[in-house]
């Protein structure tokens, strides 16, 4: 550190700081605000002063958190976008972000009816406007009546607006063929992520051998691994079967659990269905097996069902864990603890920005439920516009209402386009030698396996990069396409993947896929 001189070495200072781990001080540069030059400056133009919050003193669990979907590759993509704006020449003119399931950002249009209701709720003067259909107005009035002071600006109860919870319960009953749903078991949330983290927070306890272990699929959506790291829980990985369309194999579950029991206390099992990043849709048989397994092993089930409307493949159908559980009989339906999650961000709505979501809890210990309510009350309430949106999602226009036709057309178009893009993505990727892609049965992603030549792996290692990160970075630099490396989701050792969304408009998606094809071929040539 002593060799550092002058202001011009700012960049290298950061490295020095990293190297100074454990010493508890940081080098601070005086900001060059005009008129502020204290007498305290040292001869080098900088001085040592303790910082309270440093890499050494910060929460170690936070340090362990990783979230690839918005990781380094996305930061580089943003940087490249800025460079393009500044006029720096690149082999492409725009960055295409296929890294995140953000439908509207990729040009998907919002469902008109939903936005009408939200606008009416936001600015109730519009209830006098004849351009808004009556069904939208009646829903907005109903929502506002359930809000404190008739305003979206009031806090709701922490569990969410009661009327909306009732609507959700009815929707679930209808979806599940009449199986009852108690509105009191519904908790609205700030996107599904919020609810998932909250449930995990309840479940984590113990020390050492008795520390809570949580089973998650590999590949997984990295919210799970991030939350587990943050909470200091033990991650138990079970691998999905890539050779079998990423299906879930019960013997693998059993194996993972037995191994984990040696060093932690496995207490929860997380399932993502339809799968993220893997796009598989779970069969009913498989769900039954999972439930039986959870019951036998006393595992709390967490079913992430945010893609429940996103099923494209013929022969595949979405089965909710709740429905299957209740159809398996009292032995299970009165016993297995289940939380299932839904969101406004996916399906045909794609309304990510509103951060709407809910969870349904089944068989939760009543006292724990009180604790859950207490915990969510500290954050006061989920955003009310997101709650309002969720209400229209579960209570959409009916056949006898004026907005019905438009609504159905918009919904059908969106889902049909997604289905078309799912099969197109799979077809084109499978044409590329060295890329192998399972069918995108559901969700919004493809997670193809890519063959990387040993030379490329070596070069990546020399650069200190995971090989598929190396691949994705190169793809980004050369084509402007932003994908997430498979390593961010987890994969079997020695295999490499990337996740890409199927969300870009069809024409753009074609270009993206063609560019990937070209890039991959070139990459293979270069490193073979």
């Amino acid at each position, binding site marked *: 550190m002593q060799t550092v001189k002058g202001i011009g070495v700012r960049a290298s200072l950061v490295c020095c700081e990293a190297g100074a781990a454990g010493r508890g001080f940081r080098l601070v540069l005086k900001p060059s605000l005009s008129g502020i030059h204290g007498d305290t400056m040292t001869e080098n133009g900088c001085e040592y002063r303790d*910082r309270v919050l440093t890499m050494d*003193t910060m929460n170690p669990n936070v340090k362990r958190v990783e979230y690839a979907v918005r*990781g380094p590759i996305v930061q580089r993509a943003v940087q490249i976008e800025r460079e393009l704006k500044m006029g720096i020449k690149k082999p492409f003119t725009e960055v295409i972000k296929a890294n995140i399931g953000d439908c509207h950002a990729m040009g998907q249009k919002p469902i008109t009816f939903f*936005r009408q209701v939200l606008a009416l709720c936001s600015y109730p003067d519009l209830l006098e406007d004849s351009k808004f259909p009556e069904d939208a107005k009646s829903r907005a009035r109903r929502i506002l009546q359930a809000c404190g002071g008739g305003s979206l600006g009031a806090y709701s109860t922490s569990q969410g607006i009661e009327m909306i919870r009732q609507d959700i319960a009815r929707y679930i009953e209808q979806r599940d063929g009449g199986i009852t749903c108690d509105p009191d078991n519904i908790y609205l949330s700030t996107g599904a992520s919020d609810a998932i983290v909250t449930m995990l927070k309840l479940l984590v306890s113990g020390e050492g051998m008795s520390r809570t272990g949580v089973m998650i699929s590999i590949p997984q959506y990295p919210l799970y691994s991030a939350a587990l790291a943050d909470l200091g829980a033990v991650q138990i990985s079970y691998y999905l079967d890539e050779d079998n369309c990423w299906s879930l194999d019960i013997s693998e579950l059993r194996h993972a659990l037995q191994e984990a029991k040696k060093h932690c206390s496995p207490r929860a099992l997380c399932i993502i269905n339809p799968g993220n990043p893997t796009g598989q849709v779970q069969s009913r048989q498989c769900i039954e097996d999972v439930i039986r397994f959870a019951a036998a092993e006393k595992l709390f089930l967490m079913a992430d069902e945010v893609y429940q409307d996103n099923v494209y493949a013929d022969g595949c159908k979405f089965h909710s864990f709740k429905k299957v559980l209740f159809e398996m009989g009292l032995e299970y339906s009165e016993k297995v603890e289940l939380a299932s999650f839904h969101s406004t961000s996916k399906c045909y709505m794609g309304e990510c920005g509103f951060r709407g979501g809910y969870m349904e809890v089944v068989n939760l210990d009543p006292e724990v439920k009180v*604790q859950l309510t207490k915990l969510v009350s500290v954050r*006061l309430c989920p955003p009310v516009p997101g709650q309002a949106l969720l209400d229209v999602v579960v209570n959409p226009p009916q056949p006898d209402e004026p907005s019905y036709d438009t609504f159905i057309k918009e919904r059908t178009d969106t889902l049909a386009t997604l289905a078309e893009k799912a099969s197109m993505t799979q077809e084109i990727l499978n044409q590329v030698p060295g890329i192998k892609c399972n069918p995108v049965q559901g969700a919004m992603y493809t997670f193809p396996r890519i063959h990387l030549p040993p030379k490329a792996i070596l070069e990546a290692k020399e650069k200190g990069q995971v090989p598929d990160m190396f691949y994705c970075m190169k793809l980004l630099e050369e084509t402007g396409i932003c994908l997430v490396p498979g390593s961010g989701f987890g994969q079997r050792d020695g295999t490499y993947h990337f996740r890409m969304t199927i969300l870009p408009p069809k024409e753009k998606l074609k270009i993206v896929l063609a560019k990937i094809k070209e890039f991959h071929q070139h990459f293979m040539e270069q490193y073979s």
Partner: protein
Amino acid sequence: MYRLQSLAARSLIAGALDLCTPLTLTSLTGVRHKSQGPSVEKCGQMRFITAEAKASAGRLDGKMREKTLTMDTLNPQVKAVEYAVRGPIVLKAGEIERYLEEGGTKPFSEVIKANIGDAHAMGQQPITFLRQVVALCTFPELMDSPSFPEDAKWRARRILQGCGGHSLGSYSASPGVECIRKDIAAYIEQRDEGVPSDWENIYLTTGASDGIMTILRLLVSGKDSSRTGVMIPIPQYPLYSAAISEMDAVQVNYYLDEDNCWALDINELHRAYQAAKQHCQPRVICIINPGNPTGQVQSKKCIEEVLHFAYEENLFVMSDEVYQDNVYAPDCQFHSFKKVLYEMGPEYFSSVELVSFHSTSKGYTGECGFRGGYMEVINMDPEVKAQLVKLLSVRLCPPLAGQAAMDVIVNPPQPEEHTFKQFHQEKSSVLGALAEKAKLTEQILNSVPGIKCNPVQGSMYAFPRIFIPPKAVEEAKALGMQPDMLYCLRLLEETGICVVPGSGFGQKDRTYHFRMTILPSIEKLNVLLGKVRDFHISFLKEYSGLEWDEI
């Protein structure tokens, strides 16, 4: 249990007891003082465990079946969390409301919720301009509508241009929409008379609570005597104690000076710091200015002292400034910590780590439901900042509608714009009414024997001290509840007024308070205060007997 049962017979508490399951009783014990060591915690848990065993035995009727997630296996930190603002008293209020709705009779016709700073629920109207911009962003077809002013359309267009696919339905970058961050920085510079603000130091949040929790999460580390200690005022807003419990940090209490308008006393800070150093590592100081629940507005000199103290003792400063627009007392003014820090000179401004928080929920907009907010982070280690961004990114982004609302607050109509007049008129009318209600509350409460209320200089609350006769204190103790909880439950049962007991915020031993908001309409507030007065007098009469003359 015996005690509870015998007391349940007493009519006054019969209703209140429904909610006092053994579990919630634990949470009635008030703010947890970590510094008192594990005994408090242990005793609370033990009480609960016994009760739980009984409860489950009864429930299952001998047919024992294990659940995976039970009170025994629940995350113990979650168990320790307490949040009085939405605690048992509010649950009770909800029950009474439902009872009234179903045709039940009470000595009152409605429950008045003065427990939470929820302005719109109390009838405050939204600022028209803000809602116009949000509606335009939500349903951009309205851009063609002649009934929306150009100023609003212009802002909505600008916000939408900052959104992916020009839709509020896309995720934003995790720190927030870039143009909104820039508007916030410009607003702060203007507020602080030119003190520079870098937009890259601005992070949008899901209400201020989210920002406060996130920063605390970064700061908590270490074990035993190296565990992070967090200095918080007592009385405090219980988000802080709840977050500290949840993260298993050490709560370090510094007491505000009630005899001196709840001012912060620097000697008390020193005392608390030195005492805490014996068993933890105090690393953070939290300030709420204007104060919640105490309503004081900090003087500039006092802020300087706090910052100097933080500088000397190497403390990270978190300043909760969500009530910055809510200053009513003519001799008070809001000073931002950032500006004072700057004026103290470069030695301070370039070194003290400071995060300040703001929100759409308070001020004159009162838009709680949108969950908008931001924090400005100064002098944070660049590597830690990268960690902060990573942590925020796991939750993807704060709600876009809340971000849009925040943008309007920091970029309101200007004098040359058409909407200025109406905007200004609405804003002054809200703030004027609040100032009037602050004064009214203080005056009426101080006219009641046995209630003493400091001036409500700012924010939205009064936190009067109430005299509770020894007999009532004893009765509360027998019930296993805090005396001011007993007081507030009875107030609720008898008048329908819902206020939060002081024990939920923390207070000096053997002093009792309640927090009430000044948000009900003036007419309603008058009625409410009259009822509080009548209730208090009859409460004193009931419990004081011969001591009445001494009050």
